[in-house]
């Protein structure tokens, strides 16, 4: 049977994770001047692997745990190790966070482009012209 998820592939999950990461990085930047705030980030490749495994593994019993299904919704946030300590114990490096945010945004758009071309291909196939 035709499976839309399989046709779209990895890109939908990637885009969702990228959007989530954008949120975390924006929170870091918003708190660039907040004392005692510790910058956070998520381990993208580990999370994506977790997503892929959980979507491919079958649970044969309702009491089985789903992979990546932890208490905080499967998104484990880590703390960034500061390159330079600051006096107010804030660990946000604004330049690094901005670079990470832009990088993340570009990769998000790349995912969107892949998604778009998949969808265009599907539409072509449906029309059968």
């Amino acid at each position, binding site marked *: 049977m035709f499976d839309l998820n399989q046709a779209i592939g990895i890109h939908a999950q990637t885009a969702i994770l990228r959007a989530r990461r954008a949120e975390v990085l*924006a929170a870091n930047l918003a708190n660039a*001047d907040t004392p005692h705030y510790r910058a956070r980030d998520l381990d993208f490749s580990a999370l994506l692997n977790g997503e892929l495994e959980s979507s491919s593994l079958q649970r044969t019993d309702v009491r089985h745990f789903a992979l990546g299904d932890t208490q905080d919704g499967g998104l484990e946030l880590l703390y960034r190790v500061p390159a330079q300590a600051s006096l107010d114990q804030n660990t946000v490096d604004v330049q690094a966070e901005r670079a990470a945010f832009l990088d993340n*945004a570009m990769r998000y758009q790349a995912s969107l482009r892949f998604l778009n071309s998949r969808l265009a291909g599907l539409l072509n196939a449906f029309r059968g012209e």
Partner: protein
Amino acid sequence: MSLFSVMNIAGTALAAQTLRLNITASNMANADSAASSIGGTYRARHPVFAPQAIDPWDFDQSANLGVKVTGVVESAAELRREYQPGHPLADEAGYIFLPNVNVVEEMANMISASRSYQTNVEIMEASKQMLARTLALGQ
């Protein structure tokens, strides 16, 4: 959708930085406001920032933190006391009291606040583009 909360997060930062700029402006404006008593003299004010959960119903509150201003504190630094017997506000001993505003510090604060404001505007701009592209998906 998490891209919308990026907007919210950056929005809280814009509000906080605006308040910080406002406070800096009033400190600078009152840097030389003389008074005849210690109690009546203007004191430098500073905002206190703290992280704030954007969506109280979100189970994962540790993630999306905006920033809020929990209060404005007055500086405890010593007031300036100057001997100016000719000043209309001078007390019996001929002294006037001037605010404890450190103008150099305030300038640095102002630059830092406006930089942070710009950064957050750029974040909003970037997430706006991301959202617009997402909405145009499949067209």
